[in-house]
């Protein structure tokens, strides 16, 4: 990491849901440019909630989130403008079923960046090529397999040329034989220097692509460090316990 520019800076964020659950308990984390950050931890530990506060799909109850030095919760901040620079990929894909694959990719750049249809088509097609699905441009989402849908969803985010990509368990809803194709696309992105924050249960993948791993439990970050440390010499008991459970399950 030669470039130390902070893209995301989470400062003492807590999140209490309306039903009273404490989903995030005083969490801090930062993401530098070109860094791949992976969040792991048991279900319900708050990883997804933390990821969703990064683009304000969840607004923090306490604390602040900064993107490029701008506070997301500040009243003068145009969150829509910031979200254009943050791609997000969901567990459930959420492609737009009434639009063709090509239109799924074009709709945001055409509506927001005021690109002409022609310009947007060129960008979109190059993104489809990147995820290996250019031949599906004319198809509709429900004609695709899960793995293809997720690759399209990644391409859709990329058409906005984001500065960072957020992945919320991108392979958890996939059949096992389709996990690989999605992880390959993400690997490729990481190699190209995309800044990424990934919530995942794929431990091998996490170890392979992560620059920094954060381990969460009960709304707190219990340990963070390089994958070598986290996966081979975890420092805390809770982290050891979690990793033991995950490996036993395999």
């Amino acid at each position: 990491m030669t470039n130390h520019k902070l893209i995301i800076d989470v400062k003492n964020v807590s999140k209490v849901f309306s039903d009273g659950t404490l989903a995030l308990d005083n969490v801090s984390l930062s993401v530098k440019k070109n860094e791949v950050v992976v969040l792991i931890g048991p279900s319900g530990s708050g990883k997804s909630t933390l990821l969703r506060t990064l683009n304000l799909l969840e607004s923090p109850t306490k604390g602040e989130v900064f993107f490029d030095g701008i506070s997301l919760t500040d009243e003068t901040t145009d969150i829509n403008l910031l979200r254009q620079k943050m791609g997000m990929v969901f567990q459930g894909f959420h492609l737009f079923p009434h639009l063709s694959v090509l239109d799924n990719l074009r709709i945001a750049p055409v509506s927001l960046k005021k690109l002409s249809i022609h310009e947007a088509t060129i960008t979109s097609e190059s993104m489809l090529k990147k995820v290996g699905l250019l031949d599906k441009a004319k198809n509709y989402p429900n004609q695709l397999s899960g793995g293809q849908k997720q690759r399209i969803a990644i391409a859709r985010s990329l058409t906005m040329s984001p500065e960072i990509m957020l992945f919320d368990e991108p392979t958890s809803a996939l059949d096992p034989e389709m996990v690989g194709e999605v992880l390959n696309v993400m690997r490729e992105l990481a190699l190209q220097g995309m800044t990424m924050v990934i919530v995942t249960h794929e431990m091998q993948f996490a170890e392979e692509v992560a620059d920094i791993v954060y381990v969460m439990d009960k709304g707190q970050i219990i340990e963070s460090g390089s994958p070598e440390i986290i996966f081979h010499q975890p420092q805390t008991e809770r982290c050891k316990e979690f990793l033991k459970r995950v490996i036993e399950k395999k």
Partner: protein
Amino acid sequence: MDFSFLLDPYYINILLQGLLTTVILAVVSVAFGTVIAIGVALLRMMKSKIIRFILGAYVEIIRGTPIVVQLIIFYSLFHVKVILVGSYDLSPFIPGMFTLFINSSAYMAEVIRAGINSVDKGQWEASRSLGMTYGMTFRKIIFPQAIKNILPALGNEFVTLIKETSVLMYSGVAELTYQATMIKSQTYGFMESYLVAATFYFLLTYPTSQLMKRLERRLAKSDQS
């Protein structure tokens, strides 16, 4: 049974006038009702609790009371003076139309709201996470999907409305049921005149509902492609 009045051009004319009035009432009410309903449904999505409460109450009260009672209340509320267009007095139409607008808009607002809510929450999140505004997301992502659920239900509402225009006879609007009553009092053919009216209503509602079923099937098909 004596249906010989159906051969008399005088009675035929009365019936056809009633039929035309009924069709006009239904079409105009569904058009205006839809516009009001979209407004109500959209306002009910707003953050303001007061607005949501008022409109929620509006929808529930209108749907929870009989349309005849509503008509009589609006009729006595308005006290419309005679409005002559040619030799035709339009004054009974005012409370009548008002009742139909209000009534249909409440039912349709609920249909539209349900249609919008039936779109997966993930669609909102995916669109907003791309940076699209609330309004853009609604127009380009949510509404085009919701309309598939809304259209068939609106068609059913239209069929219901065709039948409900009959309550306007109480306020003296010369629609189909009113005309049947008039024929009854002149021919004393009690059952006959209402059987004819019923047939006319069915001839309006049945093709409409068949058309809606076909539309529904086509929308369902386009979902799979």
